[in-house]
């Protein structure tokens, strides 16, 4: 995830005679930017980068991630969603969770905890005995002892965390805000009235309320730099579940010609503006398989920094196909970020699959299997 750090390290375009080139406005990285826990300044453009919570996804996307298409039954996208939030908890970031499907507090209760290494058992026992508010400090301290690896986005970044799906994070010290859209009859009525009052229908009221809520938190907690003395700089990780589904009062999943065709794109545009102006990053899961209008999905992709599609094999013929027996689904990287630079670091391989082992979700390069074929040469 790339979070804008108040525009301090934005490169400026200077093209005077000769080949155009981009120069950095200020010193790259900068110790001020690296002071926020759980972030790392990018080598190229000094912007802050966050981890998605999955080392293998970080290596594919280069420590960036913003959006994810939901797989058919929402099983795996929900896992990525939780990894992203769990990484935020461990780094001490603030969380904002929005959902129209299940209570955000129940999502937060199920966040995976980081897997502790066996050889660090002694230290692990000490840490477990310490009070909960020191948990994240202990974990960070342990990982400081890892050798610093070369930044080539392959494997083994400075702070690599592997989350276990069997152990959940304690919610005691979580600092979070939640938004749960529970459409009651009275609020539907209010939305209908509002719709008729406006000349052109605005984005739907569920999205509008969510935007207001996010903007309020960003402003009040000072993520946009509006209250600089109030607290130390921190990152806000926002998670929005199943955007575009009917539960958000959107009809793009019901029909090919929805009435609210522009609601979701307007929402994403304004959300992007909010993220650019603050120290925050957002993961959104979208049920792409339900959206019948291809144009909307293309526009959503163009409005996102990163888009990752998850194609699970559940219920499809590939589930029993021997070629895919080691995997649970395929990963399609549809959009990669190019923030403030011409090029970005991504892996060279595009043929990626994922599997869910007992405790971990991993993304791997799909092994090519050569199927022997019969060839007849006639001279």
């Amino acid at each position: 995830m790339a979070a804008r750090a108040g525009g301090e390290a934005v490169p400026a375009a200077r093209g005077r005679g000769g080949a155009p080139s981009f120069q950095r406005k200020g010193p790259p990285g900068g110790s001020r930017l690296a002071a926020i826990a759980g972030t790392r300044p990018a080598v190229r453009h000094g912007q802050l980068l966050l981890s998605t919570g999955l080392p293998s996804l970080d290596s594919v996307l280069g420590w960036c991630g913003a959006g994810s298409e939901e797989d058919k039954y929402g099983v795996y996208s929900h896992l990525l969603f939780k990894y992203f939030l769990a990484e935020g908890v461990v780094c001490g970031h603030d969380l904002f969770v929005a959902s129209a499907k299940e209570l955000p507090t129940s999502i937060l209760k199920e966040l995976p905890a980081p897997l502790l290494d066996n050889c660090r058992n002694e230290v692990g026992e000490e840490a477990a005995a310490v009070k909960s508010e020191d948990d994240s400090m202990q974990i960070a301290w342990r990982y400081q002892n890892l050798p610093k690896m070369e930044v080539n986005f392959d494997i083994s970044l400075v702070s690599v965390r592997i989350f276990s799906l069997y152990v959940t994070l304690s919610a005691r010290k979580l600092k979070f805000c939640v938004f749960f859209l529970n459409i009651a009859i009275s609020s539907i009525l209010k939305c209908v009235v509002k719709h008729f009052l406006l000349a052109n229908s605005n984005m739907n009221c569920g999205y509008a309320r969510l935007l207001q809520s996010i903007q309020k938190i960003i402003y009040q907690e000072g993520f946009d730099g509006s209250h600089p003395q109030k607290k130390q700089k921190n990152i806000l990780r926002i998670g929005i579940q199943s955007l575009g589904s009917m539960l958000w009062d959107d009809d793009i999943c019901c029909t090919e010609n929805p009435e609210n065709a522009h609601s979701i794109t307007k929402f994403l545009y304004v959300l992007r503006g909010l993220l650019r102006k603050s120290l925050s990053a957002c993961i959104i899961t979208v049920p792409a398989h339900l959206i019948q209008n291809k144009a909307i999905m293309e526009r959503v992709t163009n409005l996102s920094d990163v888009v990752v599609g998850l194609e699970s094999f559940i219920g499809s013929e590939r589930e029993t196909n021997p070629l895919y027996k080691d995997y649970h689904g395929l990963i399609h990287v549809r959009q990669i970020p190019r923030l403030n630079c011409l090029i970005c670091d991504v892996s060279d391989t595009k043929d990626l699959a994922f599997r869910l082992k007992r405790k971990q979700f991993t993304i791997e390069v799909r092994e090519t299997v050569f199927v022997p074929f019969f060839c007849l040469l006639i001279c």
Partner: protein
Amino acid sequence: MGRSPLKWWLKTERGQLVFLEGLGSCLDVVFGQEQREEDVSDLRALFTFVQAALAPVDGDAWQGRVLLLDELGVLLSLGAAPVAVLDFVHYCRVAVCSRLQGNIVVLVHSNEDSGDKENELLVTALSHHSDLILWAEGLATGFCKDVHGQLKIIRRTSLRPGGERDSLQLYQYKIQERNVAFFARGMSAAVL
């Protein structure tokens, strides 16, 4: 659209820049305290802004005004009709190209098998009216580490009196950290 959000650069030869960033401006519109004006279906207000920003001031000897529009597909995502966007571009052409002898550069996205018919309509219409088309796309053979894509340069000489055929040039490119290297097909540094 009221104050329509879009990113703009208006550059003159002196290196002056008038910049309207839609992402930032839209936050003021959506969350601002002031009374919002009635939504309108065309982009008149946007054109008024362009015209005002580019208007020559007394004593100015500006030449070579350039209007950069990045990117028009966003206007469609925000609810503008393709016709409204095309009208807007047409008005800008009259104001910038005909009256001020300037140039306009427009960026649009397009896919071969795109399902976005409105966007494709926009791209087709703009292509017909353009004097020069720079078309960057990935290689037909797929991803390559050393050659990131190819650039088609189409000069619309057929639009000029005389009616010659359009000229087409093809280059391949590799994007580097601060620059883009262009070379003829098959002449990438990795091959030579």
